[in-house]
């Protein structure tokens, strides 16, 4: 159970990215956050694992206060929360295997990991994670030798290495074409069915309908809608975001 309570974020330059956002995410949900670019989706996801510190409000995860955790506690919380990024955020010059193994850093022996030494069981775990996303044969390639879809699968494998309870996915398919988008989201769906809570930001309504169990909509940093995916149809979408949003959405497909 993740509880987000009255979270606001104001950046040093004065931009108010989040304004008093509250909602709960039950275990096992596929929660989708929708909104136009700049609506605060990325900031919200990063506040959950505190890559960005919220200015106000509280976030509780299973009654642990994430917002007031100290550095060691925070690392412990983070290793339970996997994250997948729009730009994949792989280390391009490192091998795929090293990228996947780096997802295990929160568990690994700090000193051995600095030397780049990993126990065999971790390597096996990494190969298994790669096998799950269907690219085991790429383990020893350099990350930048892979296509965009494959790189995102490495990103998911990296998150899997954390044995996460929650996966935060920040626009995981925004850099991919529609067919690849579905294949990536299907992997997330499978993980969700296995009991991992998924919180995913998207901006395509079709994808929201297909995958979400619940939806939170943001506009200018404020929560403007919370409910089931069925409740948010095209008319509602248009009502929230206006005419031009319709065009953006249409143009994207």
């Amino acid at each position: 159970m993740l509880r987000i309570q009255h979270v606001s974020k104001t950046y040093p330059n004065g931009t108010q990215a989040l304004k008093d956002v509250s909602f709960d995410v039950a275990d096992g949900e596929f929660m989708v956050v929708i909104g136009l670019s700049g609506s605060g989706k990325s900031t919200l996801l990063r506040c959950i694992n505190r890559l960005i510190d919220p200015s106000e409000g509280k976030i509780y995860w299973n009654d642990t206060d994430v917002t007031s955790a100290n550095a060691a506690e925070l690392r412990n919380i983070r290793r339970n929360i996997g994250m997948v990024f729009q730009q994949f955020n792989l280390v391009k010059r490192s091998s795929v295997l090293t990228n996947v193994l780096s997802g295990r850093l929160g568990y690994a022996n700090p000193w051995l990991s600095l030397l780049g030494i990993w126990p065999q069981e971790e390597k096996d775990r990494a190969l298994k994670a790669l096998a799950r996303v269907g690219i085991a044969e790429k383990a020893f390639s350099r990350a930048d030798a892979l296509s965009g879809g494959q790189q995102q699968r490495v990103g998911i494998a990296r998150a899997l290495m954390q044995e996460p309870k929650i996966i935060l996915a920040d626009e995981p398919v925004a850099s991919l074409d529609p067919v690849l988008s579905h294949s990536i989201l299907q992997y997330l769906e499978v993980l969700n069915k296995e009991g991992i809570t998924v919180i995913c930001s998207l901006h395509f309504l079709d994808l929201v309908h297909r995958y979400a169990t619940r939806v939170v909509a943001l506009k200018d940093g404020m929560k403007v809608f919370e409910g089931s995916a069925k409740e948010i149809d095209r008319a509602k979408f248009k009502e929230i975001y206006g005419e031009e949003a319709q065009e953006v959405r249409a143009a994207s497909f």
Partner: protein
Amino acid sequence: MSQNRSPLVAGVFSLLVPGLGQIYIGQRYRGVAILLGTLVAAGMVFWYGDPLWYFVPALIGLWNVWDAVSLARAGQTRPIWIPVLAALLAAYTIGWQVVGIDFSAADADRAMQILRPMLRPDFVQERREVNSMWVPVQVPCGPQPPQARREDGGKSALVMPDCAGVNETMILNVNGMWPDTDTNVVWRTPIGDPKMIGENEAEMLVVRSDASGVVTTAIHVPSTALVAAPDPTLPQEHRVYVYQYRPKGGIELSYIGSEVLNGALITIGMALIATMLAVFLAIPISFLAAHNLMGGNPVTYAIYVVMRTILNVLRSIESLIIAIIFVVIVGLGPFAGVLALAMHSIAALAKLYSEVIEGIDPGPIEAIRATGANWLQTVRYAVIPQIIPPFTAFTIYRWDINVRSATIVGFVGGGGLGFLLIELIRVNNMQGVSAVFITIAIIVTAMDYISAKIRERLV
């Protein structure tokens, strides 16, 4: 924007300060360029001091008023090639005089004198065998001079009479030398100083042995035989040497050749050590000079600005100049050169490195942090993999440059090929100079090739 500006005001402005009219009209870049150009042209002419050339800044000034007025009136610029051409004309004419260009001074005969020996680089020489013999002679005569004869390994030599004074003539006879071979005859004083006893004592005395290997010749005691003697009246043992040479087949390194090879080794070594030292120091400095790491708060930003300034100043001082300081501190020799090269390389590498650090992708850092990694792990897995390959490429590139620079820090006493080159030029040994030039070309070309290959593989 220009139509509502008054041509009169623009003209007057430009008349007062060149370029001001253009700035007034809104063409800020053009105005500043005109102002700078006029100042440079005027400064140049003022420094040169020939009043004739004042027509250039005057012409630029007039053109600039014309340009301003026409811009204000019709929004049309006037061709910029007029002032540019005038300025170039002045710059080239004045420069020609100042640099003292005088192609008639390029004396072709002297060039040939320099170039001809350069076609025969002094690298190697024929391997040869030496057959030598010597005999003692007393100079000047004492009361009971020892016999001037000596036998050694089947050879025998004698001088008659047994002793003599300066400039006196004697007969030298040597048996058992190689037959029909040119033989050099050299006088050696008791301290081993060789003296030539041929024509005017300025040439080697060369005698040919006969068919049975006998060398017979008249010799005279050189006039300088007793110059270094503590007491010229005291009889001392001098020696007369004879040498024969014949080719043994094959070639061997000449003296200059071995010096050049040694210099080449030192030059490459200087570059290598200097680069290594520079890398160790440049890495920590580059982190302090990276904007994305140091821009956070005023204190670190101040460090960043100071670092950048020091690096920029240091980078604009050639290693040759830095070498002078180190020669004063650690004395002549390659170590001074190493330190100078290292100093310059630190500045150059730290700048390149810091640009790499500024250019790293923040995405992976965020991703690794999100897995619960600590700070060190984040650096190890997100930062280092991104910076190692470009760092290595820049380092090798720098080594390549340092090999070139190492040849010239020698000019001020930094050792290596440069030092040797200057010495050889000083004694007019153009064959040696040629050997150095060839060696430099080989080293630099090889380095170029190797460094390009390695960098190709890294990127």
